């Protein structure tokens, strides 16, 4: 299966509150709370610019993160994106 692109929630749908090293995310659509660590909030922020796949996301995040070895980064991001999909926070398009 081709690497899918993912879409973030619409603007204003998520309320993100940093809690120390964690972030609490309230999803206004589902009314659910998700507690996440870095880099989840950063992924969501990067996706806000528009849907993209894991490789595209790695490129967007490279500006603000030190991602060693591009292949690795995309694989890790794919896992994170699948976790965010299970939470309903992002959706494959």
């Amino acid at each position: 299966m081709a690497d899918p692109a993912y879409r973030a929630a619409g603007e204003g749908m998520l309320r993100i509150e940093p809690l120390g090293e964690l972030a609490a995310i309230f999803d206004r659509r589902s009314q659910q709370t998700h507690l996440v660590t870095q880099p989840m909030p950063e992924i969501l922020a990067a996706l806000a610019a528009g849907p993209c796949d894991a490789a595209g996301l790695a490129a967007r995040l490279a500006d603000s993160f030190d991602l060693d070895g591009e292949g690795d980064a995309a694989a890790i991001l794919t896992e994170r994106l699948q976790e965010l999909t299970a939470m309903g926070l992002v959706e494959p398009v």
Partner: protein
Amino acid sequence: MSAIRTLVELLAGCRNAADLAPREWDGVIAVARAEALLATLAHRIDGAALPEPVARLLADARAAADVATAQALWEAEMARRALAPAGVDFVLLKGAAYAAADLPCAPGRQIGDLDILVARDALPGAEAALITAGWEWVKEDVYDDAYYRDHMHELPPLIHKLRDRMIDVHHTIIPPTARPSPDAASMLDRAIMLPNGYKVLHPFDRMIHCAAHLFADGDLAGGLRNLWDFHCLTRDFQARGDGDSDTPEGALGYDAWLGDMRARARLWGLGPAVRRASHLSAALFENAGDYRRLSLGDRLFRARLLARDDWGRETRPFLRLAFYIRSHWLRMPPLMLARHLWTKWRKGHAAAR
């Protein structure tokens, strides 16, 4: 006047909420909770001059219902995300449909499990897609499983392992063993696509399903809430037709469309259910208290619907039992009922030892 009748009159709008004595609210709130109608009532009398503690409690109920409705609609969205990629078309039923279509009965209405209707031949695909997306069987029990698949109108209930919410996937609106036989394929054909992308039943079918659910498929537990749904569905259709359906907006008179709907219901053997729902909703929610035109049978149903005292307790145990047995009788041919009860009894017996 008993609290449950006061509740009915408040919903009907023929009693002014501001006129209740403060302590009358004790009973009204208790019976409204027992009938899962508190938030519905809270919306219905929003803005009335109420004792401050009642006003605050009803505001709490409205806020909590908004949260619960959003949670229920999210389950519909999760079902869409699971089923759309698998090419499974589905129609929302009952509470989730009312909320998705923003019908007048939706504000404050409690929504339990997500109920969806799919074509019979789409069932295996729906089942597989839901299981891939994290739903799992509630019961692993072989008898119950076989029983559902063979005789009921839905897959055995599935529950999502992370969100802990149930989905009921129906392929017809009442069990195939029950005597009325609605045509699910025709219902799917006539379903309406909403602007938000969800499908719901055609207004006629919505009303027929509501009536069928009220009388033919249950022991009338929660019946008052279902009857209120029916009342709102009929009033809503009468008031504005439905621009998305093949019925010209507002073009039909009330009697004409009621006739149309009844003809469709009769075709499926659900004429009596729709007729009785119409009588009861008129008697309870339109000319509240005017029961003169009800038949003896209607009156028994009315008594069952109002069998609750001012402490919220169920009353009339024998009437309730009669309706419970009736609900099994209606869903299953007698011989099958005997086998069902026998199997259940033997399992209960074995568990006790």
